[in-house]
């Protein structure tokens, strides 16, 4: 009975469909063209959805991720000032990027810097830019890359926390974006950039998500800042414990999650490559957290929570350039090396040289980024990323394990260029900021804390 009623209903639907399509049948060519366009827009919808989510994830790394991570590590009198370093850059760099930054980084110009074709985002709209990402609007690509430009200078703030003037910090960041970030981003990712392995660079360097552009540049600049500004008053004689590690743990966890947007998003599509980068990122982070923890446990007798989260960040940093090039097990290895190495950087090396890199921006990002960039040259494989092809379309091997040892040298050159740019650029900018505004707060302002002396507020109000 039931079955018969179903059959009746089905024939009714068939009949009405036939009536609906009773008009002239379109030609095969039209139908194929319609189908192709439907497939294209379906792929674009999928890719665009993932890229917009990725962009939001990367912004979440700066605020609240980095703001909480750094904010918890400083003393309570500097918590707002430190969080402000991250937050205000979400505004400052955005404006810079819209006006000229995107063009200087991604306009096709010289091997060192882009041209002004995208000034005021001219021509950056719904149409994809096939050189960078053929399936998403160029505007999506633009806003995704913006989030990288925001977090990079925010990372540097870890080195000058608790003692830099707010006005000088703003000027420094603006100049730094022009002198260091835009050129490096162009060299590594821009079309025709000197180090761009996939778009005609002279020295082909692999940097999937920003090991050189983001982490070496910020980490090395951080070291220069720490040396230039000098130590905080009372460094190594007064107690300077993190005022709230709970904030830092929350911040580190947000960084870990946000980093999936940073690395897997760098596939610029919701593709299998994005999955591979996601997995590599997660694996390296896990093994780096364990590496730091075990090293610290053996060395100091106790596994600290600060150590575990610092290790995780070191792993995220180190896997960044490698994430879209390496298989899961090399990723585990890269993480482990970075976790242990960065532990010794922030403990043994920092205390041996005595510089005050307040929140270890150099020890984690400079060192982790350098290790990651070089190991990318070792473990990059065409089994993961078949994007590099010769003129005949044959897929080329990538790193040492693909039988291409020369790539390690390319990576080293890329690292050296990044270090050089960061050191020279930052030194010149600091000198300018110092002459114009003075970079360091007065001794009284430093004692009082940046929250009150720079911003006229306190993070924790007893009487409220």
């Amino acid at each position, binding site marked *: 009975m039931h079955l018969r009623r179903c059959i009746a209903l089905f024939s009714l639907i068939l009949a009405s469909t036939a009536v609906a399509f009773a008009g002239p049948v379109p030609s095969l060519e039209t139908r194929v063209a319609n189908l192709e366009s439907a497939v294209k827009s379906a792929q674009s919808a999928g890719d665009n959805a993932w890229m917009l989510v990725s962009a939001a994830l990367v912004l979440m790394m700066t605020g609240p991720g980095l703001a909480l991570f750094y904010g918890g590590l400083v003393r309570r009198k500097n918590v707002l000032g430190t969080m402000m370093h991250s937050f205000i850059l979400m505004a400052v760099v955005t404006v810079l990027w819209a006006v000229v930054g995107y063009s200087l980084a991604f306009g096709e110009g010289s091997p060192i810097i882009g041209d002004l074709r995208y000034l005021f985002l001219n021509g950056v709209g719904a149409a994809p830019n096939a050189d960078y990402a053929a399936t998403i609007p160029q505007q999506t690509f633009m806003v995704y890359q913006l989030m990288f430009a925001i977090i990079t200078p925010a990372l540097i703030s870890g080195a000058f926390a608790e003692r830099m003037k707010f006005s000088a910090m703003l000027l420094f960041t603006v100049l730094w974006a022009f002198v260091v970030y835009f050129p490096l981003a162009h060299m590594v990712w821009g079309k025709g950039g000197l180090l761009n392995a996939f778009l005609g660079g002279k020295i082909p360097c692999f940097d999937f998500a920003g090991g050189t552009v983001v982490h070496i540049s910020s980490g090395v600049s951080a070291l220069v800042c720490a040396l230039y500004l000098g130590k905080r008053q009372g460094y*190594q004689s007064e*107690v*300077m414990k993190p005022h709230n590690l709970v904030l830092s743990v929350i911040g580190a966890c947000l960084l870990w999650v946000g980093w999936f947007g940073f690395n897997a998003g760098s596939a610029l599509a919701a593709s299998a490559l994005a999955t591979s980068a996601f997995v590599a990122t997660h694996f390296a982070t896990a093994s780096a957290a364990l590496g730091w923890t075990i090293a610290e446990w053996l060395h*100091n007798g106790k596994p*600290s929570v*600060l150590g575990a989260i610092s290790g995780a960040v070191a792993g995220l940093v180190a896997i960044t350039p490698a994430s879209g090039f390496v298989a899961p097990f090399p990723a585990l290895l890269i993480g482990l090396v970075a976790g242990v190495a960065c532990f010794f950087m*922030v*403990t*043994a090396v920092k*205390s041996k040289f005595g510089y005050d890199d307040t929140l270890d921006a150099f020890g984690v990002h400079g060192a982790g980024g350098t290790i990651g960039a070089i190991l990318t040259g070792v473990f990059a494989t065409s089994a993961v990323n078949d994007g590099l092809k010769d003129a005949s379309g044959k897929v080329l091997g990538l790193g040492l394990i693909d039988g291409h040892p020369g790539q390690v040298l390319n990576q080293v050159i890329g690292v050296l260029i990044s270090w050089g740019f960061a050191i020279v650029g930052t030194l010149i900018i600091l000198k300018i900021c110092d002459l114009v505004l003075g970079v360091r707060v007065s001794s009284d302002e430093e004692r009082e804390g940046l929250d009150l002396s720079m911003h006229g507020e306190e993070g924790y109000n007893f009487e409220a």
Partner: protein
Amino acid sequence: MKKIEAIIQPHKLEDVKEALKAIGVDGMTITEVRGHGRQKGHKEIYRGMEYQVDLLPKMKLELVVGDPRADEVIRTIVSSARTGKIGDGKVFVYDVADAIRIRNEDRGDSAI
């Protein structure tokens, strides 16, 4: 009137409160404080920076009682706060000149 000020281990606070309640003392003021006597502190390490932490968390308990009850209250605090280890804390006793209840301006013993 006597003011009794006891600095005790934080984890003994509940025991002391219960013991005081049992003998009918129902008012006190408690502050979280830090300090140390002969007790040694501990070491904390943050990314290789080592700190010797001497000032340890303690609870300060303050209460004012009439002279006849002072000894009993002190004995109760001491016996309920004791673990027998270094760091158990101390009790200080002061004479109080006067006490005023803000609500109705009662004075002296009737204000406490």
